């Protein structure tokens, strides 16, 4: 690891000022991704400002919904009573990610700032436009079975790794940030992460030095019918091949509100707006779910090794919606579930 200066932030203003002043300084939260990337020499900050002791860890009801602190850990967030009761989709998504140890360390702000796990990004001997703009994309014609099928560009086919962010996309979360001199702004979740376009080196629309103080979850009527489905190569502690955050509100027998977001398929959490629009006002039937899923995936452009993801994502959308309709309880929709194996 390269040498770096380290300090504990004495307060939010001082921390933001310090990072803003140094273009190669970074905030350090749980470090679960950043410290690893520094060991791999992928990220080379000259200075780290530790922020987990700043007072941004509250999870509390506010006028416009539930506010989740940027420095609250993933574990605390997933298990908070208000989150579990009102936004079970978020709890399920967080708990689907990483391991108990990592969730105990990782902060919510850090989760949104984590980098792709594309192996070309991680290997400093490989070309990667995200790590070193202009060097090319090794994955485009390389080993790309885990890569994007939607929204990618010739410059980058990486996927965004977070589960939490997929739920936040479906929940229409708002990211509250603070920059130098107390400048605050709010970023709707759909505008937080970016598609790669010509600048895959930029993951999201935060400006350098801007600090995520909280994430706001607007009220909804989706808690009764929410489900996070994650499909991966082993049953736990692996990144998603495809994941789906699904939530519904039913009025009579018609869909009043529906949210579908996909993980593992694009450079950002992919909100399935085409499928959502098709389902609004319709009955919640398998046939309608299927038609909507296929319509969404019609625009998919698979790479050499990931054609499987197109069919998988379509089926996953249907299963996740059905899981949500069944009350979002684990087990109902899990293939190979062993819930009866109590010995």
């Amino acid at each position: 690891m390269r040498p770096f200066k380290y300090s504990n932030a004495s307060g939010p203003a001082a921390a933001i000022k310090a990072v803003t002043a140094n273009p190669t300084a970074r905030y350090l939260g749980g470090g679960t991704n950043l410290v690893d990337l520094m060991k791999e020499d992928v990220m080379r900050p000259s200075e780290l400002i530790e922020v987990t002791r700043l007072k941004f860890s509250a999870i509390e009801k506010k006028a416009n919904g539930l506010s989740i602190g940027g420095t609250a850990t993933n574990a605390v967030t997933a298990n908070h009573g208000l989150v579990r009761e009102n936004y079970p989709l978020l709890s399920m998504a967080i708990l689907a990610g990483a391991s108990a140890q990592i969730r105990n360390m990782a902060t919510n702000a850090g989760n949104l700032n984590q980098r792709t796990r594309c192996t070309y990004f991680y290997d400093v001997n490989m070309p990667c436009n995200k790590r070193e703009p202009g060097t090319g994309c090794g994955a485009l014609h390389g080993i790309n079975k885990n890569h994007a099928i939607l929204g990618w560009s010739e410059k980058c086919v990486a996927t965004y790794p977070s589960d939490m962010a997929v739920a936040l996309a479906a929940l229409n979360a708002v990211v509250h940030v603070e920059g130098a001199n107390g400048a605050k702004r709010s970023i709707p979740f759909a505008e937080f992460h970016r598609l790669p376009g010509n600048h895959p080196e930029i993951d999201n629309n935060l400006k350098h030095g801007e600090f995520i103080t909280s994430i706001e979850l607007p009220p909804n009527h989706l808690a009764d019918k929410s489900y996070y489905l994650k499909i991966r190569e082993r049953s736990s502690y692996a990144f998603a091949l495809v994941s789906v955050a699904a939530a519904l509100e039913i009025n009579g027998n018609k869909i009043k509100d529906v949210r579908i977001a996909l993980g593992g398929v694009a450079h950002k959490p992919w909100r399935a707006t085409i499928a959502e629009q098709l389902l609004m006002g319709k009955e919640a039937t398998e046939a309608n779910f299927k038609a909507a899923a296929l319509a969404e995936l019609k625009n998919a452009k698979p790479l050499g090794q990931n054609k499987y993801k197109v069919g998988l994502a379509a089926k996953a959308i249907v299963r996740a919606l059905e899981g949500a309709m069944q009350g979002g309880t684990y087990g109902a929709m899990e293939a190979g579930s062993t819930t009866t194996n109590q010995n």
Partner: protein
Amino acid sequence: MEERSTFPDLSEAERKALEELMPDEMGEIISSGIKRRHFLKLFAVTGTSLLAANLLGIEQLMARSVPIEEQPPVLIENGINVSFQVNGSTQKLTVDSRMTLLDTLRERLGLTGSKKGCDHGQCGACTVIVDDKRVLSCLTLAATCEDKKVTTIEGLAIGNELHPMQASFIKHDGFQCGYCTPGQICSAVALMGEAKNGDASYVTANVRKKEKSVKLSNEEIRERMSGNICRCGAYPNIVNAIREVHGDQAVAQVWQFADGTI
């Protein structure tokens, strides 16, 4: 008497036991402390049944923190003064900002129980408990530990009395090579607290139903322990070991010595 002071922790009984087992090595053990290769030699000279009788006492001896000789002061680039508790005792150190908690425990404090498996947060062998939460010491910078309380595998037993989770891992043969075991046990100890707290997991049937404490099924234990990889595949026995401590009821031991004793 003078040479004994270099390893003052050795009790008369331990000294006598070691002298009987490895007379040739005693001079070195007394002058520089017991080392891993002495432990390995014990395996060779004793055979498993004799070793089993001595095992717990010897393990206690091995688990002691032998103070690593302080090097003459050198200039540490980006040195950070940090003070934190490890297994109940306060440690004040100056560390390079790059130093992980794992390396600090192993290289500066001589606590080699926590293991460096992958060093990238993928295996769980380095799991320790910081302020009652299980975390990965390989991804924790030591500089971030100011005022925190760290518990490692060496801090779980009270004197000669093993922590119930340690005893259960031995009873259920929850390991083969043992490399992942300190991390598995620390992780399992913290898991007991999470279950008592009613925390949910990905396989919890209904996350909206918040219970005071959670009764863990085998599937729940497997999901919640998925951050600890065991290359030997001792998972069924690890689950049994945890289930016994969690359930507070006996689970049948699956192994015995060749002479039929357990």
